[in-house]
């Protein structure tokens, strides 16, 4: 069972023929810039770094509201590839409003259902990168919460 927003995106992609799936991925990639932090926004955690797995710097910003649900913002360097841009927009939208624990427990098999077998085959190493980074920031957040509770 996936978060409803994510489930809707998965269902959309699964209903599309290959050409439209690519077009939709490009549309999401076009919207990746809209996931950047807005002026004045404050975050519980920020994780901006350049990893070997990705062609450029990727920043992940985690906001947790009073109800304990997470909201994500991301920044992408100019060299980041189109598929990674698409996954950024998809995951920021699809995981919005879930708790960090729910995000952390999310199985990653949905990524192949969105991207499609063909693109998974040719880019199998990189399609999970954004999800890994989002889960990573959730894990750090939860670890800090636990440590604070113990202290």
């Amino acid at each position, binding site marked *: 069972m996936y978060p409803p927003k994510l489930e809707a995106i998965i269902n959309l992609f699964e209903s599309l023929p290959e050409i439209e799936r690519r077009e939709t991925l*490009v549309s999401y990639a076009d919207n990746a810039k809209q996931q950047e932090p807005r002026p004045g926004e404050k975050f519980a955690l920020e994780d901006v770094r350049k990893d070997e797995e990705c062609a450029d710097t990727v920043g992940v910003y985690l906001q947790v509201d009073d109800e304990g649900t997470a909201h994500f913002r991301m920044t992408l360097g100019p060299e980041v*590839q189109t*598929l990674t841009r698409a996954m950024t927009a998809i995951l920021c939208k699809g995981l919005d409003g879930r708790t960090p624990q729910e995000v952390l427990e999310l199985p990653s098999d949905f990524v192949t259902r969105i991207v499609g077998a063909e693109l998974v085959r040719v880019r199998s190493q990189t399609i999970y990168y954004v999800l890994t980074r989002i889960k990573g920031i959730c894990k750090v957040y939860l670890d800090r919460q636990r440590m604070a509770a113990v202290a």
Partner: protein
Amino acid sequence: MTTSPTQYAHPEVLVDADWIEKHRNDNDVRIIESNEDILLYDTGHIPGAVHIDWRTDLQDQVIRDYIAPDKFAELCSRNGITPDTTCIFYGDKANWWACYALWAFRLFGHEKVKILNGGRDKWKAEGRTMTREVSKYPQTNYPMPKKRFDKEIRAFADEALAQSKSGKPLIDVRSPGEFKGEITHMAEYPQEGVLRGGHIPGAKSVPWKTATNDDSTFKPAGDLAKIYLEQCGLKPGTDTVVYCRIGERSSHTWFVLTYLLGLDNVRNYDGSWTEWGNKVGAPIEKG
């Protein structure tokens, strides 16, 4: 003593953006985009350009090899290409994949090939027109190539080994870290399953990027001659084998040596380090 050339051996093999603007609607010209970023063409391309994907269009989907001649004929036919079509290749990453696609077209004997100097990055940086409209051309009937020119421009592992043993030129165009065996993939790229790091014994390290300017165009002929002829010691008429990790960066160097410096007998070992670094018993040098 070598005299530095003042112009490329085959200057006609490079075109610039103005040439494209003038000729992109010519019936006997086909512009072909080939990228590393598999969705990049979909985000916008030169008007009229078709997309050829190095993995799905040029490679056999089962065996690690190129497509068979009949599949190449089908690929050309569906993109409106005939043996008389001048194919202009361009793409991202300073034309790595464009050079790879050009090399693959040469494997099948297609003769009229050119590169857009500076590739996609320069075209975009100059603010030139791009479109998302997918280009379609009337189907042609490209004849099935009678042979693949593997012997002439491609090297296999046993040939690379023979090259190593005979002390003939072997050029490793990967990054210095890959050459030394400190890493098995380019920085910023995923590890793709190579078990050993290093280089083929006797290979010289000349990273592909030494042949390009910051705007992804090729360096002038004199500079290229200094790098490859004077410093690296390559000579016309001597067998030379170039390799990288999967054959794309070495296609770039193969293009430079063959067309810009006019060296004969340059072959691309496209199996490259992903084959050599996994091959049981293959000799390796480090450092």
